[in-house]
């Protein structure tokens, strides 16, 4: 039985899921290859911007300003979007959002809907709830289509099927689209998807999308994408529902000048996305006439109060932190037990979905800092990880679960030892005695009990030298 699920309420701890994924060598090769390719493209395009650091700072400032006065900007967006002929709905949680969307589709008498790739709708598990209410959902993004046809889960926030290679996609399409002779080169695969989808674009009259940015000043919505399928959904449908987290708002249209430079470079390693759609409300005779935005809270407002947690909401979902992360590289996204994976997932999931369901995620990082270095809006992910770890420790203060208590006792002891250098020296001498029975014939330690056994599972350990530095120093001073 596989442990893999992206439902944070049911997901196993990160180390457990990771252990399963580490055995999947095909998946690990796919992930390493795909992230290498994107990283190289990104690095080349970032290098050509001499003002990249200034753009990061400006992007961070735009996002931070929006979050600092989120209430004001959301109300401004609502006012402008409504004035332009749209309808704004507020959803406090996933359930409310799903009910609102079902209601809109019901009123529009839609029993089929086309979708643009959207992490927010994945977060609220929208497809499943629509299907069970009798609405057929067609994913139009190539990667989302791959997942939908393969009953698979997203493993990356911008390339959700990144864990699959093209041979695997070919086999899936051949089976699901009844194309036994399909080739496995990218043009053949996209052509197959195009033919499969084209008919849906022409016939389905309701569409659901996410949003990259909501612009408060003008009430506009911005979506960037690579394939043009999104553009079809946005223009061919009669009813259009955009589902957006409340953090997606930015104050002014001019803010796009910065963010549309950094997002495509960081995300896909492109100077500009092939399709940039920005629209403001309803235009008679042109595009959807029944337009809705569902503003989703779903735990986000809890992050607003403190600066350290608020920065998580600055994220523009570029995926750069996933591509650079050495941990993600080994496991892929499914280990994170949430649609949000990688470093951003490790800080977002525990904060959105109550800490107890995701206690292992803040520890799913070696704190190497590569994520912070590439983030186009300068989210200090390691700082947030360490902060969340302290919240896990505080929460478990009175909880006797074994690993934590073994660790906790050790940490407590060490903290006491470090407060006094004589105690510390005594501990150094004791450690030399304790380790003696574990030293092997070759003078190295190969196996240790308890938590330390996790170290020796894969690595040897040199024994503690007979003389500490301070002992050497004392002797040297005495002989001088």
């Amino acid at each position, binding site marked *: 039985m596989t442990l893999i699920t992206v439902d944070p309420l049911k997901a196993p701890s990160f180390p457990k899921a990771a252990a399963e994924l580490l055995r999947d060598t095909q998946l690990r090769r796919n992930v390493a290859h795909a992230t290498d390719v994107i990283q190289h493209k990104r690095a080349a395009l970032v290098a050509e911007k001499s003002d990249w650091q200034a753009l990061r700072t400006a992007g961070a400032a735009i996002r931070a300003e929006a979050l600092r006065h989120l209430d004001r900007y959301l109300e401004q967006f609502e006012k402008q979007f409504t004035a332009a002929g749209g309808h704004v709905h507020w959803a406090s949680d996933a359930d409310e959002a799903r009910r609102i969307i079902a209601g809109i589709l019901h009123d529009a008498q839609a029993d089929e809907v086309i979708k643009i790739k959207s992490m927010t709708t994945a977060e609220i598990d929208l497809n499943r709830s629509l299907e069970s209410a009798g609405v057929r959902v067609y994913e139009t993004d190539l990667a989302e289509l791959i997942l939908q046809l393969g009953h698979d889960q997203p493993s990356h926030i911008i390339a959700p099927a990144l864990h699959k290679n093209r041979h695997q996609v070919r086999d899936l399409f051949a089976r699901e689209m009844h194309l036994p002779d399909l080739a496995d080169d990218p043009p053949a695969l996209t052509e197959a998807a195009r033919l499969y989808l084209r008919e849906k674009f022409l016939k389905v009259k309701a569409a659901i999308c996410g949003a990259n940015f909501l612009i408060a000043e003008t009430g506009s919505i911005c979506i960037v994408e690579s394939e043009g399928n999104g553009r079809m959904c946005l223009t061919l449908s009669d009813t259009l529902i955009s589902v957006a987290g409340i953090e997606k708002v930015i104050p002014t249209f001019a803010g796009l000048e910065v963010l549309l430079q950094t997002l495509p470079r960081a995300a896909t390693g492109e100077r500009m996305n092939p399709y940039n759609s920005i629209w403001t409300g309803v235009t008679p005779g042109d595009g959807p006439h029944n337009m809705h935005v569902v503003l989703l809270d779903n735990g986000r407002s809890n992050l607003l109060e403190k600066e350290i947690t608020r920065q998580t909401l600055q994220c523009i979902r570029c995926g750069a932190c996933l591509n650079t992360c050495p941990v993600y590289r080994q496991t892929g996204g499914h280990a994170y037990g949430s649609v949000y994976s990688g470093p951003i997932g490790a800080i977002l999931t525990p904060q959105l979905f109550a800490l107890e369901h995701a206690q292992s995620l803040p*520890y799913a990082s070696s704190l*190497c800092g590569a994520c912070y270095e590439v983030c186009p809006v300068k989210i200090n992910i390691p700082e947030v990880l360490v902060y969340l770890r302290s919240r896990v420790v505080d929460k478990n203060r009175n909880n006797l679960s074994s690993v934590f208590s073994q660790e906790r006792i050790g940490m407590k002891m060490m903290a006491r030892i470090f407060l006094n250098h004589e105690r510390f020296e005594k501990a150094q001498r004791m450690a030399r005695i304790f380790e003696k029975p574990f030293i092997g014939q070759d003078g190295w330690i190969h196996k240790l009990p308890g938590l330390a056994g996790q170290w020796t599972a894969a690595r040897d350990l040199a024994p503690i030298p007979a003389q500490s530095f301070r002992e050497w120093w004392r002797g040297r001073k005495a002989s001088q």
Partner: protein
Amino acid sequence: MRISLFITCYNDTLFPHTGKAVVSVLERLGHTVDFPIDQTCCGQMHFNTGYRRAAYPLAKRFVSIFRDAEAVCIPSSSCVAMIRDYYADLADENHDQELAADLRTLLPRIFEFTELLTDCLHLEDVGASFSHRVTYHASCHGLRSLHLGDKPIRLLRHVRGLDLIELPNSDRCCGFGGTFAVKNAGVSTAMLEEKLDAILGTGAEICTACDNSCLMHIQGRLHRHGADVRAMHIAEILASENREREGTP
């Protein structure tokens, strides 16, 4: 110059050679080294594992011991990162204005070992000779928090006889990450395995870095594999004057 050495708890216990090498380099360059004997730990392990409350008294303790130092030398990039990046936060969240004020004046006098040589003493050639093939692993905290850049590389380039071989993906984490190595041992090992492939691919005899924690991790796996490559702190290379016989570093 009078340089106060903060050896760090794990170097003191597990890597006394590194401390001796730091002393030897600095004294050879004509400086006086001072070792405040009541020092222990900077609090990094507690802080990074989530035991923030336990880290605070250790931060206070460190600052009170080194407050009046002319310069503090620390041969561990991750401990310097702890002090630089997070001590001010600890002062802040504990409303400790005295600690915050002390930090403001102390932080500019704290140097990681290779920083001390290049930024404070303005040296690249420290008079070392070491005739071996060496590859350099850029420890994460040194690279991304201290922004050491090519400072260690410049020091190594001036070591006589040293053949420096570039490590592919030298900026990728080795998978140590403190308690990460035991809490996520599987992933940590997978990361380490990639690092080992890169190191062994260089044909180097020695893998060096500015942090013994990464080196302990790397050495542990090298030894498990029976590989004939040694992990060695950069201070030990810079202290070397080729007293060793060829081939036995």
